[in-house]
Structures are given as C-alpha cells and as structure tokens.
C-alpha cells in the first residue's frame, strides 16, 4: 500500500493542532513562539505534500514556496525572541498573563 495525500494532510493537521494547543494553553511567551513555529512548519508540510501529489507537478514551484515560507518563519522567530528578551528586561517576567499594563 502506498500512502495517499490524506495521510500527509492528517499528520499536518495534527501538527497544526498541537501548535495551536501550545500557543493557546501555555502562559510562557517562549512556549507560545514554539507553538507558532510548529503551526508554520505544518503549513510547510502541506505545501510540499500538495506539490508532490498534484496531477501534473511543476518541478520547482512547491519547493520555492516552502523555501520562502521557511525564510519568513526564521525572520519571525528572530524578532519574536528579541521581543521576549526586551520584555523580560523591562518587566522581569515572561509570563504573558502578567504583561497587562495596557489592559483597560
């Protein structure tokens, strides 16, 4: 039996849901970033799977989208972690529940 597209999509959906779980249920800013990175990786897996299983695959198209998506995710991670460090310097905490100065 050769695996079909649905297997890859379900694995990707599971990975996305685990990322969502990490982003929604944890209180530590770094955990939330890890969850977001995991959701982006699941999206990349979807890009590659759809490219590979397309009836007439265009050779570099899906790979290009995945490469650009990885580059943008790397930029997001760098800025996000820099913000975590900046917030930690000001408030001495990384718990997102305690960062409520702008709350009305």
């Amino acid at each position, binding site marked *: 039996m050769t695996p079909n597209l649905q297997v890859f999509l379900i*694995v990707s959906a599971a990975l*996305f849901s685990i990322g969502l779980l*990490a982003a929604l*249920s944890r209180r530590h800013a770094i955990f939330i970033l890890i969850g977001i990175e995991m959701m982006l990786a699941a999206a990349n897996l979807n890009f590659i799977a759809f490219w590979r299983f397309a009836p007439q695959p265009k050779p570099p198209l899906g790979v290009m989208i995945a490469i*650009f998506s990885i580059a943008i995710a790397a930029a997001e991670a*760098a800025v996000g*972690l820099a913000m975590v460090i900046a917030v930690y310097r000001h408030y001495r905490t990384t718990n997102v529940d305690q960062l409520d100065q702008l709350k009305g």
Partner: protein
Amino acid sequence: MNSAALIIIAIVTLAAALAAATLRKLMHAALSFAVALVGIAAFFFLLGAEFVGLALVFIYIGAVAVLIVFTILLTRRDVGEGRGFNWGGAIIAVAVFGGLTWSILKTQSLAIVAPRMPALTVKQIGVALMTTYVWPLQCVGLLLTAALIGALILVMEEKR
C-alpha cells in the same frame, strides 16, 4: 514512499511535538521541538523535497532552536509556569483537529497517490531562484536584513 517508514516518522514527529507543547520544563520542551523538526525534515525527504528538508534542518535546528535555547538561558530567572494547564486551549485544539480531519476524510478528490516525477535537482532550484523567482528572493533578503537589524535594535542595552 514506504508506509512503514511513514508511520514511524509520523509517530516520532507527533510524540515530540506533543512533548514540546505539554512538558513543564522549558529546556526539555525546546529540545523536543528540535526533535519534531527533524521529523518534519524526514517527511520532506520522504516527499522528494530533499533540498527543503536540508534547509529546514539548517535553519530551524541550526538557528531557530539554538536561538530559543539562548533566549531560555537569558530569561532564566522565572521558570515557574504559574497556574495549571489551560483546558480551553486544549478543547479548541481538539475541535480544530476534529474539523480538519473530518473535512480531509470527507473530500474524495484528496484520496490520490503521488504521480511519478523526475527527481528535483539542486541545479534546477538554483536556476529557478535566479530567473523566475529572482524578485521574491531579493524581497526575502531585504526582509531578513530588516528583521535581523530590528531584532538587534530591540535587544540593545538602553542608554539612560
């Protein structure tokens, strides 16, 4: 594509991802995140996108995971997670997974097997990056430069 390899990789990836999402200790979670990324790279190898798999290993495990570990070490002082697990997030995640799985299994046009395809060489990717995708490549380069300079400015010591 081999189904035994696929099942093993899927189990390892999802177990590591679940560990990264639920472990109490930050450092353990960050290292499980790296293991999950190795699993995703293995998926890319399985799907015939070796270059993307290698790029994922270099960028995510070589740079992003190390950056996360450094950030954990720099913000070490509060390790306490505080209150317990937030069940609302778990319910939402399970609902999203159920909805996605239901719609994937319901769509008959997705039950296809991969067509035969000539292997994608790195040379083809390089030629495409320098011809068709040269403007997106420049834009991503600009974005990365701006993001890294912005990150540096964010963490610079403030002079009072």
